């Protein structure tokens, strides 16, 4: 595979989109980018432009009005792309189960690769999710040598099975 696709998992750029969440998970996404957790040292940068993004961090249960916008963002992101559903809302829409104006989770609109539990999800869980997403990427990517596949992502972080 090309050099570009080999280097991408080492510096995944994320796009964060709020599809009607209560801001709880969004704050934790922001906490990731700020000094305490600081994922930028692993090469993870928050990009507001879907055309620059590799991983979509989606929060919220996807309200009816956001549905078309989420689909548009997903279509604009170049492949290979990964989607992480952050929090209980994005995974199943559970906290707002009785409410009428949402689509019960991100996976009813676009395919999701990693689900993060928690209301609001903890920043540590989000880091785990991004690492898992990269793992999935690596397993899909045929260009990796066996040695590189075994070595795992070089993020200085223990990956949960």
């Amino acid at each position, binding site marked *: 595979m090309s050099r570009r696709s080999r280097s991408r998992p080492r510096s995944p750029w994320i796009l964060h989109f*709020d599809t009607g*969440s*209560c801001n709880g998970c969004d704050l934790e996404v922001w*906490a990731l980018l700020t000094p*305490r957790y600081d994922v930028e040292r692993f090469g993870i940068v928050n990009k507001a432009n879907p055309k620059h993004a590799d991983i979509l961090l989606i929060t919220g249960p996807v*309200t009816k009005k*956001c549905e078309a916008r989420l689909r548009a963002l997903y279509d604009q992101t170049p492949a290979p792309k990964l989607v992480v559903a952050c929090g209980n809302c994005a995974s199943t829409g559970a906290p*707002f189960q009785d409410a009428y*104006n949402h689509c019960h989770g991100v996976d009813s609109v676009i395919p999701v690769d990693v689900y993060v539990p928690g*209301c609001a999800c903890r920043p540590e869980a989000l880091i785990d999710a991004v690492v898992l997403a990269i793992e999935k990427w690596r397993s899909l990517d045929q260009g990796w040598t066996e040695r590189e596949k075994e070595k795992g992502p070089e993020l200085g972080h223990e990956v949960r099975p």
Partner: protein
Amino acid sequence: MPRTSTIPFGPQHPSFLEPLHLRVRLEEEKVAGVDLSLGYNHRGIEYAMEKDWKRNFFLSERVCGICSFHHSTTYAQALEMVTGVQPTERARLLRTVLLEVQRVTSHTLALGHIAEAMGYENLFMHFFREREEYMRIANEISGNRVHYCMNWLGGVRRDISPEAAREVSRRMEASLPRLRDLADVVRKDSTWLKRTKGVGSLSKAQAEDWAVVGPVARASGISYDVRLTGNAAYSLDGIKFKPIWREEGDSWARCMVRMDETLQSVEVCLQALSLLKEGPVASPFKGNPSGEGFSRNEAPRGELMYWVKANGTAGLDRVQVRTPAFVNIPPLGEMLQGEQFANVPVIVVSVDPCICCTDR
């Protein structure tokens, strides 16, 4: 004849955390008009709240993650008015501590967000470093970072040990000098002043006309604060408190009000922690509420109101929420009129628009 153009902002935009859509009409570089589009975050919480009054302590926090404890406290106070149950003294003080801790996290978020909107990344990181300290303090008191899940009818659900209270006070006192340094930056830094001073002004007459609340009103010369008068007034617990207000009415004044309130909140927290006495944290209550209740509280963005109508069953007839961002967002059109296009993100963020509160 000036050239005109229309530029869309959002719903997904680098400087907004939340889905807010602005359609900005420009004449050359000046803003000629703004159309607001809301409703991206509407989930129908008020309808969901009619199902079960006990689950609403959980659900009311999910109205907004930035001021979650204010929402659940106001809901609990409204139910306390319905049932006549009085929260214990210790519960009131613990609520005050958490309300003010959350106000610190919200105000530092707002200030950091403004710094980010003007491209001042360094200051954004500084504000968020201080914010993280208060997230950890909230974690220490309640066990959660964002939604504290602490409120219950007649009090709070968890107590704080004396050691933990001492530790929390120590960490708050340690953070005060760092917060004062940040206040100096907001007050004096030339980059900050150039981007905010005289930008997005809202006069006192306009503020009264639009009925704005919270820091936006207090920055425009209206010294209105519910913490003085509401059914949870701080003076009832013996806490000394005076509202902070300014007269300039521009973005800088809004920032300064938030910054001074952050420092004040820490001091209120320390007062409340020193006033804590041993005792139960909740009054007992059995059965289902019946009747009407109303409550208001000073959320970080301003006056928050809940009205509850209960019918003696597990369900409620109606829960009506009036959030502060709901009244603070419409005057944006007035504030943006005639401003430079580059100032639009700063002005919008200086109002601290909370879309999840507004749309619910």
